[in-house]
């Protein structure tokens, strides 16, 4: 699965996700990636997110909307909300995400051995795979 989130110069957010699912999946199986509110979410009031991992779990917890709701209704920071989602709500299942909030804060949490990831700003380009 691949995904991207962005904050543009006009203050708008967007998210996109694309995937082949998993190897030997049953024909017709749909994961979280195309389910708005599960694997993909964007709302200018809060954040944009794209998920990767065990899609069925992302769907069951409405992961994308959960992240949004934590910021909008509970006043959590993106960092706190995303870490809690990946390391507590989705604990025990392979999961990760990239997200950016309306202030431009970026998080890339995951609970597997590694996640292909990166971010770019006006003065920084960072890519990583494992804890490096």
């Amino acid at each position, binding site marked *: *699965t*691949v*995904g*991207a*989130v*962005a*904050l*543009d*110069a*006009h*203050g*708008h*957010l*967007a*998210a*996109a*996700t*694309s*995937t*082949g*699912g998993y*190897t*030997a999946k*049953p*024909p017709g*199986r*749909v*994961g979280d*990636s*195309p*389910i*708005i509110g599960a694997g*993909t979410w*964007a709302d*200018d009031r809060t954040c*944009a997110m794209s998920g*990767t991992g065990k899609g069925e779990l992302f769907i069951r917890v409405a992961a994308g909307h959960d992240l949004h709701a934590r910021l909008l209704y509970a006043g959590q920071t993106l960092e706190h909300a995303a870490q809690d989602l990946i390391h507590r709500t989705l604990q025990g299942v*392979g*999961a*990760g*995400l*990239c997200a*950016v909030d309306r202030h*431009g804060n*970026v998080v890339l949490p995951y609970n*597997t*051995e*590694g*996640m*292909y*990831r*990166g*971010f*770019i*700003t*006006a003065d920084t*380009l960072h*890519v990583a*795979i*494992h804890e490096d």
Partner: protein
Amino acid sequence: MPTPVLAIHGGCGAIPRASLTPETNAAARDALRRALQAGYALLQDGASAVDAVTAAVQVMEDDPVFNAGTGAALNRDGVHELDASLMDGATGRAGAVAGARRIRNPVQVARALAGVSDPLLLIGDAADAWAEAHGFAPVPNTHFTTRARQDALRAMLERETLGTTARATEFEKHG
């Protein structure tokens, strides 16, 4: 005026550190950089976040390193079924496709669907047909196939026979 930011992931099924060859490591990092640069160049020119995420994801769809587009996983029948979505935070509009088999860049079609907003999500043949009707040239399903994904499918089906599916690596499952 906010400072533009772009972040990406290429999947959390990363190759274990011990199995990561220098060549694969370099290819993955290069692809990630290209995806970031493609999206950020648009943001620097004043383009929308929607433009940026579409461009970044398209670069990764076209790179066989990742499990999306070219290099996507195979289902148990040996067929690629592709899912993608896009959401615009400014308007709340979204578009998505699921189980598409002939769309070269599913994220582009998801974006086009977000532009019309109804339908929002199309599946299978309907997604392929809508894409073709809206100017997206179809590709054969084999366009997405790589040797690595064929090997992974063979390994996973063998694990099912042997009852060792639970021990499959993230790489075997997700590429």
